[in-house]
């Protein structure tokens, strides 16, 4: 059952990721990207990361994708379809690069020796409820408090930067 769920979610995620890339209309790409993100949230649930799955749905599939769709509609391009490239070999080169990277990653990860912990860490063997909000918050607000505070600075800088960039006249 676990395996079946994983396979279905993974296949849908990869197929709609490919559709994100090959769609010519950016609006359709955005909608397929939402499907990919939701399938990845299902995988997070299987990895017992409930909090991250909820964040994925709310922040990624919710907020970030709304931002994408908002900008796509704001631009209101006359012709949203990709025009033919002025660079002649762009698509073949991109395909070769992507395939090369894929083969390399698959080769390396298939050849790698699994660490000893891997076998002991099979699903169901971890104590308690590791992905709950409580346990994530506990480690986020104690051990990783400083990085957590830094992300707030990052978001502030991002916000100021966006306002500076997008405002017509300061």
């Amino acid at each position, binding site marked *: 059952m*676990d*395996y079946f769920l*994983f396979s279905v979610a993974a296949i849908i*995620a*990869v197929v709609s*990721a*490919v559709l*994100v*890339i090959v769609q010519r209309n*950016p609006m359709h*790409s*955005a909608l397929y990207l939402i499907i*990919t993100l939701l399938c*990845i949230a299902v*995988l997070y649930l299987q*990895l*017992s*990361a409930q909090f*991250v799955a909820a*964040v994925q749905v709310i*922040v*990624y599939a919710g*907020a970030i994708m709304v*931002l*994408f769709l908002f*900008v*796509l509609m704001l*631009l209101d*391009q006359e012709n949203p379809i*990709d*025009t033919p*490239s*002025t*660079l002649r070999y762009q*698509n073949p080169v*991109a*395909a070769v*690069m*992507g395939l090369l990277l*894929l083969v390399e*990653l698959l080769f390396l*990860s298939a050849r790698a020796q699994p*660490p000893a912990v*891997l076998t002991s*860490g099979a*699903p169901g*063997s971890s104590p308690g409820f*590791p*992905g709950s909000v409580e*346990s*994530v918050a506990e*480690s986020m607000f104690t051990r990783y408090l400083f990085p*957590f505070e830094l*992300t707030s600075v*990052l*978001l502030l800088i*991002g916000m100021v930067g*966006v306002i500076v*960039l*997008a405002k017509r006249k300061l």
Partner: protein
Amino acid sequence: MIAVHHYIFLSAALFAVGIYGVIARRNAVGVLMSIELMLNAVNINLLAFARYVTPTTLTGQVFAVFVITVAAAEVAVGLALVINVYRNMDHINVDDINLMKW
């Protein structure tokens, strides 16, 4: 039985699709979407390793949340840049945005 390999293969596939998109897409918003795919592949890896290699600590999950935060900030700034480019050039085709090329 799902092993950590399955997740690694899936994230490798998503990352490769994302890198193809970054190189081949000509719409600037499409390029940003491909970057999102790659960030998600990284997140899958973080969570899979957190689950299978260090099941008792939550470092991977905390860092996945940080990666999502960084992705949000990056998308916001990127889309603001896209809006600015559109205002100045009336298109967002990244092949033709070459004002700063020598």
